[in-house]
């Protein structure tokens, strides 16, 4: 019989084996709790202060680049090239508002580029992509400058000379065909990293919870076995230290398991109610900005109207998909009957999105009817043409509000998760030590009777 070899034939041997079993289970409870708490902390760091915010910054880069092209398009539409080209330090002129916005957004894009470099962690493909975007901005600047100089005229909302259209087309093609895709791919790549880190940590926390429950139950069973054996064999009703150890093991197990369940929920909240929607909605915002710019592009460059109309439709389909709509007329028709939005916060976004598309249909009819200047006026804010039309801005602001809301949820989930973890830096160790001491205290006097 194997029991002979592990010394369970004697009473002292049995007590020792039971106590050792309890201590092993306790060690496992301690380790499982510590490891799972570590994973929870790591997951919160990823979403809260490391990769998560950096990926969101690259998402902002996409939006900033879209904004830059929107400003350029607005200036060429309204004819405020002088304000754009003005250098207030060199001559007595007033720099246009769009130029200020452009410069600010350019800096935003560059700053986000630096975040993307940190995120790339030496991955050469990604580093080269960031570099290509930042380099591409110089080429874009040059094309914009050339277009502005060629487009200079005293007349507001004038038709641009072919040279200006050509340079504008080059600039906007560089932006939409080269820089924006690269920026977008960087965000996708970073988001994939965050996704897999989150999946790993989240399932590690859930697995940890399972282990904590298992180790806790095993500890309780071992302690119960010890208790039963000592009570019967030594005719004691109850060993007080062991009874306290049982109570302590229960508390530690239940508290640990429920903490880990809460942390898993917090991680999920930070990811699926925070990080994911912020990224998705920022993307929708950038697509919307690009769509509004496509309408402006078409007005500036009627020669490529079919292409810009197609880009507009494709972006509309990306924001809210309408099955089978292959023209904006069909799309608008279906949109008017649509009762529910789709995707993230679709219902909250639908009314304003529809309002914007309703307005744009009017612009489209004007331009198709040959009233170019009227279409340009209708496309922009009637009070201040440096701004897009209020119907678009309402849609954009709604998105901005939703992004802020989800950003708040992300930060709050991370903060609460972190706070709940704080005592667990020392609690498992202290609890395990105390329980171990109690087990020894419960067993020692009985074993000493055999010396």
């Amino acid at each position, binding site marked *: 019989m194997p029991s002979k070899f592990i010394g369970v034939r004697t009473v002292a041997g*049995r007590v020792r*084996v*039971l106590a050792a*079993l*309890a201590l*092993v*289970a306790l060690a*496992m409870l301690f380790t*499982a709790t510590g490891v799972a708490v570590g994973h929870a902390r790591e997951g919160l760091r990823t979403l809260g202060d490391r990769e998560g915010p950096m990926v969101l910054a690259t998402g902002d880069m996409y939006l900033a680049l879209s904004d830059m092209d929107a400003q350029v398009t607005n200036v060429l539409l309204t004819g405020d090239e002088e304000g754009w080209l003005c250098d207030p330090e060199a001559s007595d002129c007033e720099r246009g508002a769009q130029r200020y916005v452009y410069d600010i957004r350019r800096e935003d894009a560059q700053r986000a580029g630096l975040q993307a470099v940190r995120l790339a962690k030496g991955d050469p*493909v*990604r580093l*080269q*992509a960031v570099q*290509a975007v930042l380099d591409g901005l110089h080429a874009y600047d040059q094309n914009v400058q050339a277009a502005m100089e060629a487009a200079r005229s005293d007349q507001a909302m004038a038709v641009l000379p072919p040279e200006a259209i050509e340079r504008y087309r080059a600039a906007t093609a560089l932006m939409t*065909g*080269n820089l*924006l*895709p*690269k920026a*977008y*791919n960087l965000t*996708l*790549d970073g988001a*994939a990293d965050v*996704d897999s880190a989150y999946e790993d940590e989240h*399932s*590690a926390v*859930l*697995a*940890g919870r*399972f*282990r904590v*429950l*298992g*180790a806790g*139950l*095993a*500890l309780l*069973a*071992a302690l*119960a*076995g*010890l208790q*039963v*054996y000592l009570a*019967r*064999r030594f005719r004691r009703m109850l060993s007080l230290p062991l009874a306290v150890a049982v109570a302590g093991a229960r508390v530690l197990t239940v508290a640990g398991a429920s903490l880990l369940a809460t942390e898993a929920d917090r991680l999920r909240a930070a990811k699926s109610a925070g990080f994911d929607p912020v990224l998705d909605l920022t993307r929708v915002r950038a697509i919307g900005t690009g769509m509004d710019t496509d309408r402006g592009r078409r007005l500036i460059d009627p020669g490529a109207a*079919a*292409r810009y109309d*197609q*880009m507009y439709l*494709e972006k509309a*389909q990306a924001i809210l*998909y309408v*099955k089978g709509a*292959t*023209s904006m007329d069909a799309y608008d028709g279906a949109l008017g009957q649509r009762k529910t939005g789709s995707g993230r916060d679709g219902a909250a976004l639908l009314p304003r999105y529809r309002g914007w598309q309703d307005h744009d249909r009017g612009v489209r009819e004007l331009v198709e009817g040959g009233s170019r200047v009227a279409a340009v006026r209708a496309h922009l804010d009637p009070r201040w043409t440096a701004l897009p039309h209020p119907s678009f801005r309402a849609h954009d602001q709604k998105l901005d509000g939703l992004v802020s809301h989800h950003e708040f949820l992300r930060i709050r989930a991370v903060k609460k998760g972190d706070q709940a973890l704080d005592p667990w830096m020392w609690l498992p160790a202290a609890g395990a030590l105390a329980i171990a001491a109690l087990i020894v205290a419960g067993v020692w006097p009985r074993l000493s009777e055999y010396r």
Partner: protein
Amino acid sequence: MHAARSKSTLVATAVLAGLAVLILVAALALPPLVYGDDGPSSVTGKDKLVIGVRDDLPGLSLRAKDGSLKGFDVDVATYVAGRLGVASDDLTFQALAPNERESALSQGKVDMVVAAYTITHERKEQVTFAGPYYVAHQDILVRQGEKSVRNVQDLRGKRLCQVAGSDSWRHVAEERRVAASLVPARSYGECLKALAGGRVDAVSTDDLVLAGLAAAAGSRTTMVNAPFSDERYGIGLRKGDVEGCHAANRILAGMYQNGAAETLLDQWFTTPGFEAASTVPRFEGCA
């Protein structure tokens, strides 16, 4: 009496101790099974790959006289597979008709589809798309010297080649309501002959296909260069293969950065009046 009590105590203790050991082992062994990665098998973990391609598109993927398949799609697939660690000897190319692509993937007949496979909302419900590796645009091919066709609207009243099973003519005649008179043909190769022979005035489909046609020796045709749609050619993977999708996207990004994409595009689509895009497209995303 004492012996019986002692025995039952021993049994109870042994049961509790056994239970403790059992639970400990289960707690150690089970979580990786329950919370482990249980996604579908990925193309990243294969030693051999079967790749679905077309066999009727000049420049993209066409069956050569010796029976092998050659073209840009075949080369892109070979490049991606190579970077996934599968040598070209371990690749099998299988010709698929357009309507077979989804089922071939879902039934596991092919591991990957690189077949002028446009990413659409409907297809994304059945297929996970890496890429696109190229964004083609629908364009128009005319005889050299033809000046009256500058954009899609100019096809009004012209004879346009209509290939069975292709949607390209719909984009002109139905979606844009351009009243062209349609001349049926079985393939784009036949359209090219009809165009050269004066039986049709224009052929309209994806620019890569047109460039492949125009590049054929002695075609005496030219592209109008008035793109009017985006056809995002993706790499079709089994639904849910997110890992493979990310890996393929990284490979495609590298393929554009190191110039391999440009070399391949130049190799297959050099034709006057057409310049293939040489920068990486915006990826669709894998989720």
